[in-house]
């Protein structure tokens, strides 16, 4: 099936004019499947880390959101053990006005501002709420251990 023009346009723009700290490269054999790399934002517990993600555009994209998951282990209250991300625009707040770029920028922003009140990884969120400094320290350790290229 032919790739919709919108996906081609989005991909071209992602390659020609990537967002700072984000790269997304489609697979040669499946142009709906992207290897994504997000650099841990400065002044976040993930600073210095390089995080791999997978992004898949389902058949009904852009009527349905992209599926995005972290491949690199990360200690974050809104990202679970399987790398699934708790982000409203990837679920009930999706709109076809959003794009791959805006989705990845939102994921990057989530790294800068973890939200333990809307958790996906409950134990991590609890840690974050009870002892933020200790949780941040664990997140930094995990970043060094798993997310250093």
């Amino acid at each position, binding site marked *: 099936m032919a790739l*919709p*023009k*919108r996906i081609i*346009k*989005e991909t071209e723009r992602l390659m020609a004019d990537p967002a700072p700290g984000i790269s997304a490269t489609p*697979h040669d*054999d499946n142009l709906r499947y992207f290897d994504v790399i997000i650099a841990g934002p400065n002044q976040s517990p993930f600073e210095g880390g390089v995080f*791999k993600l*997978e992004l*898949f555009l*389902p058949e*009904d994209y*852009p*009527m*349905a959101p992209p*599926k995005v*998951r972290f*491949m*690199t282990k990360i200690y974050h209250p809104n990202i679970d*053990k*399987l*790398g*699934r991300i708790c982000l409203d625009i990837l*679920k*009930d*707040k*999706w*709109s*076809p*006005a959003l794009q791959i770029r805006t989705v990845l920028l939102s994921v990057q922003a989530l790294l800068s501002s973890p939200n333990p009140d809307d958790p996906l990884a409950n134990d991590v969120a609890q840690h974050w709420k009870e002892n933020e400094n200790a949780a941040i320290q664990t997140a930094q350790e995990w970043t060094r251990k798993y997310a250093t290229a």
Partner: protein
Amino acid sequence: MASYFDDHSLEDPYKARRPNNNNANSNSRFNPDLSHFMPREDTDETAQTPYQMGATSMPGEGDFRRLAQLFGTFRQREEALGDEEHQEFLDNLITQLMDEAGASGKHGPPPASKSFIRDLPFVPLKEVKRDDACIICNENFQENESKAGITKLPCKHFFDRDCIVPWLELHNNCPACRAEVPSDDPVWIKKKRDAELAKYAAEAEVDEDWMYS
């Protein structure tokens, strides 16, 4: 690392679907392809396939839920045997299947009402600004005049008819500003009515306060 599927001499559905997964992270078990677990369509011609889309059969909500239940019974057995690693693996799988059961179009607001979609206005091309593009397909209206024409929502956002109708058939809001449009969904209608009643009640209370103060 040997995967669950290697340990059990099963075909790893993850590997089967992703040819380029020979990197360091390939042992993650994302996205099991359910077609590996599904009975083939041609083996049971009497089976109903209500979720069938197009020529290939897609697993539907009910399929995911049934599989989740099936794995739930496996999990209970593993629990009895005290196998924590398998329990955890099955927990993850079940969560994922339940997620899938609620996915694709099930998230978010209900569909727009049939009459609203039917009565969408036709907008003449001259009403649209030269540089305006449809945010769903990213095409400029003037350069890429779609055969079905242009329409607009009550919030005054313009779209190709071909682009906005499939969205409204899933959700009753504007992709650009999220302004709501009518829905036939009974839950949505009830919520809307309750909100209005609450508003009147609040206003009535204010009136009373004013009268007796």
